[in-house]
């Protein structure tokens, strides 16, 4: 299978590589670019562990071919961690023990951040609804909902102060 040139922005850094067109973004991120924070749970778009941000939208990187990212801005948990953008969510997850094995956590945090950017003060039901595509076998979700709720409140208070 002939490889193709691919270039895109990855966590603010230009990357150029050759990939086979059949390979999905998650495999290329993990195997070729060494960013193993993007996890694979089902490779079927169901579990949400491989969630990344592409041009500002969250996507399942197991359902997107890497070559579809040509010219795009791709952000993974490593980039969002280094930039500090999701530090408050990460801290809330840590303090609330909203992760056990941690395998779903990068996808959870990226998905939760997506919710809070769209809807700053979600209800608990609203949080449960938005997170319903991200599977966690360990926590039973209660702590995750708590952590997201607490972060929303903090961001809201912070926003109110700066207003």
């Amino acid at each position: 299978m002939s490889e193709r040139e691919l270039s895109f922005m990855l966590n603010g850094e230009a990357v150029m590589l050759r990939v086979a067109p059949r390979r999905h973004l998650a495999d290329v991120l993990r195997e070729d670019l060494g960013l193993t924070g993007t996890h694979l749970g089902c490779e079927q778009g169901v579990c949400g562990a491989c969630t990344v941000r592409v041009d500002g939208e969250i996507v399942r990187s197991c359902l997107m071919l890497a070559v579809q990212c040509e010219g795009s801005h791709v952000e993974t948990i490593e980039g969002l961690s280094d930039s500090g953008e999701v530090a408050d969510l990460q801290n809330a997850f840590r303090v609330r023990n909203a992760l056990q094995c941690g395998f779903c956590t990068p996808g959870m945090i990226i998905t939760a951040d997506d919710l809070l950017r769209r809807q700053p003060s979600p209800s608990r039901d609203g949080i449960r609804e938005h997170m319903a595509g991200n599977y966690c076998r360990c926590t039973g979700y209660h702590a995750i909902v708590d952590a997201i709720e607490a972060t929303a409140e903090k961001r809201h208070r912070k926003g109110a102060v700066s207003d």
Partner: protein
Amino acid sequence: MTETGLTFLDRPNSYIGRAVPRPNLERLTQGRGQYVSDMVLPRMGHVTFVRSPYAHARILGIDTGAAKSHKGVLAVVTGAELALVCTPWIGVLTHLKGLKSAPQHPIAIKKACWQGEAVAAIVARTRAEAEDAAELVHVEYEELPVVTDMETALDPATPVIHPELGDNLAWERLHVAGDVNAAFAEADHIIEATFGFGRHTGVTLEPRACLADYNPGDGRLTVYQGTQAPHMIQNVLAKHLDLPEHNVRVVCKDVGGSFGIKVHVYADEVASAALSKLLRRPVKYVADRIESFVTDIHARDHRVRGRIGVMNDGQITAFEIDDLTGIGPYSMYPRTSAIEANQVVNFTGGQYTCPNYRARARVVFQNKNVTCQYRAVGHPIACSVTEGLIDLAARRIGMDPVEIRRRNIIGDDAYPCVSSAGMRFEKLSHEAAMAKLLEMMDYETLRAEQAALRARGIYRGIGLASFIEVTNPSAAFYGVGGARISSQDGVTVKLDAGGALICHSSVTEQGQGAEAVTAQVLATAFGIPIERVRVTTGDTDNTPYGGGTWASRAAGIGGEAAWQAGKALRQNVLAVAGAILQAQPANLDICAGAVVDAATGRERMPLEEVARITYFRPDTLPPGIQAEFVVTRHYVPKQYPFAFTNGIQASLVEIDVETGFIRLLRHWAVEDCGTIINPQLVDEQVRGGIVQGLGPALFEHCIYDAQGQLLNGNMADYLVPMSAEMPDIEVGHVSTPTAESELGAKGAGEAGTAGAAAAVMNAVNDALAPFGAVITSIPITPKSVLAALGHI
């Protein structure tokens, strides 16, 4: 009690009982963990398996020619070829008398016995190339008659899966206590019901993964594996690959979920290690999700006929069960697939005083994926049968479910005692737990609300489920049956040159918080801020020998070893500090990372200074003083074979009687794990466990057709609990420490799963009571609700 007569509660700056955040979480939230599926080694090959599409078929021939010449392929290996470097195994334990199974090879040789059993392995440069080549392997099969229905597995007309075993019965156990016939004869009512427990599976988010690295230079095999029991894996690989045990090293990195799925020996994982030895290079295997569904152990698959005798005043006179379970074609190795049925017999009725109990359990072979121990082994079955029968009895005599439990539960003042199944209870707290639960849920108000809503055509149900849970197992679980699975665990701790503690524990971490609990206990026992304790687990070369993390044992057993190790190191450090300070060690203590006067707490010397003098200026120490700043302590329970715990759960559901949809509104749990080392971790173990029980109660089901084909083996068709369907869960505690250890901690990891399904089943039946409908099989689906209502 410590040497100074103080308990851990009196230690200054104690971390016991505090919700300290786990030290490894920051890394995991940043995606900087390292799971085995992330690992890469030089010259690593990726293995994939050709798997049988048939549930039962003779392998007539395998043509690997086309696959071998495919791009990137390093090797194509059949079962016969792999058998040259790996011996087969038989999953039996001698204390389960009569248990039998057939030899199992890492890759099937003459016939495949379930859909998904590996029949050939392809190792290639990439997983994708291996999968491409797998499609080119041509296997010629002759289909054999398939045994799928466990109800007919023992019929004379049913083919025998392993003819050399004589029949399809793997194991049978009978147990009788008291005078059961007389007890049923005198009962005012006898209620019978048949309970069904569908097959389900673990669906760990990270699939099983291992990376085997055999180095022919030193004859050593290093296996990186997501496992709960590294020393068990070390032993098994050494034995079957003909290596000295000390030449096998098993290392666990981060593990993406376990729940009992990753405590077993899987044929494809052993095959990966054998391939590494054969090919003399690293071989990595990561199950994909489709493979996981047909090879990760399945759980449950029981049918239990239950009977209960009850008097008009609510007194239970007898319990009787007849359990039948299908375990697939082999008993799993080395823990066996008979333990769950054994525990169903052991636990049924164990909360209650009734002395009359008769049980039969039969474990049968079938051509489906293997089943084995999964979180709360046997507990959900024993609990659902017991609590389901009690609710049916209460309904028959017109008694509130709370009241019938009050009249029969073992009183909190009755300990120690022995159950009708022979289980020894040191001290449980059923009465206190039920009182706390009823207060938390405001039972009376809920009942009133239920009645008011029912009048408006809204059908809510309240279900209770009390349970016992087995934790802190001694050798009685596996060791006595001949399995080389340690029931003892150990902790090594050392004071480093910077005055911090470096600890290695033989328990393992898959997210439960074993490392955090170990750090809390050590920090308290030794007297140091927890930030200066580093805990490493999961490395057979470097940790003490031990069992690992399963059966709710890490905190109770590993925690006690950590407590003893921390205390011993404190004494050793104080001996040296006394020499430096010219003080009696008995008059000194360690607090907040400094040597202090025991009486006043006044700081005498920071630990860094003790360490500096010890390591770099030992010439200044008095003659005869040799510092020993590394200690190891082990612990294994000996007085009781298991530390039983107890708890009770309640579920509130609402049923749409037109559509059959069930909504989980609330869930409550009270459990008693003895000393609570970290309340947040205990709560989250209970919550996670509950949801793992709610899944099979309502959604999870491995659906097989009559030909042994799994029909829903992917995450879109196999339903798991997601956030939108799950309720908030309120958790409360009663604390009855075990007197067997100083720490007094019992396990908490399986309490949630033990009672969740029973609470939901009882709640559903409570909601359906106005219609006279009863459902006793899980998962309870909209379809089964509509069927029970007579709508379909």
